[in-house]
């Protein structure tokens, strides 16, 4: 009889998952709240709007744990870099005296490029592991997004999507390329 078939197994497995969720709910605020604090310092009180998203991301990665969580810690570092990007990089068309709402300042492409660059650099630097590189990569993207989204509160929607999308795309492409190269360089058994 397979172990999965028994009622005892199912109940015990559910207890494990609930235990992880409980632990994640306890641990996530220790990361999300400082991120929100940093966001308030760098982007103002509007950063609080995205606190639920940041909290949710960290509850999820703590709940899943393992490579996803490991990747998220790296992503957090990358996200901190993103949050320090000056607005002159994200909105290069704006001069210092331009009005904040001027349409000339909507530059999703610049945000996408900046996000992708940070994503590529980070994914290239992080050791991804052998078997589950995509989990580490997802973790990096989630960890970065959880911080970068704070920066997005000062951006327009298109720029915000560009920044987060750029990060995700940069991490995904670089991680996939690294995994492919690693597989090719592995000797045939």
């Amino acid at each position, binding site marked *: 009889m397979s172990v999965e078939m028994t009622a005892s197994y199912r109940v015990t497995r559910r*207890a*494990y998952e609930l235990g*992880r969720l409980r632990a994640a709910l306890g641990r996530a605020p220790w990361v999300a709240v400082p991120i929100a604090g940093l966001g308030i310092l760098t982007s103002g009180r509007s950063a609080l709007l995205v606190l639920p998203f940041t909290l949710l991301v960290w509850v999820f990665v703590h709940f899943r744990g393992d490579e996803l969580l490991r990747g998220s810690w790296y992503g957090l570092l990358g996200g901190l870099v993103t949050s320090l990007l000056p607005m002159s990089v994200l909105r290069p068309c704006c001069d210092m005296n331009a009005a904040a709402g001027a349409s000339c300042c909507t530059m999703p492409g610049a945000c996408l490029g900046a996000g992708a660059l940070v994503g590529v650099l980070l994914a290239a630097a992080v050791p991804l592991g052998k078997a589950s590189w995509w989990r580490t990569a997802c973790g990096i993207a989630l960890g970065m997004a959880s911080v970068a989204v704070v920066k997005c509160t000062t951006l327009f929607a298109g720029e915000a999507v560009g920044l987060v999308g750029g990060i995700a795309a940069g991490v995904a492409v670089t991680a996939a390329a690294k995994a492919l190269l690693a597989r090719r360089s592995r000797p045939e058994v």
Partner: protein
Amino acid sequence: MSLNEAALDALMERLARGDRSAFDPLYLALRPRALRLARAQVGAALAADVAQSALLRVFSRASEFEAGRPCLPWFYAIVANQIRSEKRGTARYVLEPLASQGVVDDSQDAEAALVTRELTRALQLAVDALDADSANALRATLGLEPMPELRAATFRKRVSRAYAKLRLIFGGHDVG
């Protein structure tokens, strides 16, 4: 399923990190242990229920397991505490004569002997995980080693600190 201590430690460490692939082998390795201890403590009739509730507690707290610590002392502390609290809480268990004598006296019974051996080993692992001073103080208290040349008050303090550290290894508040 028989796994050695190092394998159990490694699996529990992985499960605590969130590696779900460690769940099945751990479940298969720990369930018989919980059942054996429950049978020895509350009798065969109630063992399955008690072992199950103990297992739920162990696995729901798996995320709290600290890497580098031995798994068995932590596991047995939770199971034993759960068995104790089930006994206390419901007061509906009728202890079997053999079980009421405690597992240490049941050397005739093969299963009880196995439980005793496992518990003794778990305690030994926990003591081994302590620093040398604490471990020696506990061993001296148990008469396994000669008393160190210390003032009585110093020795008492060392034993007290060793017990505190031992409680942490056994899972902190789980040890009653």
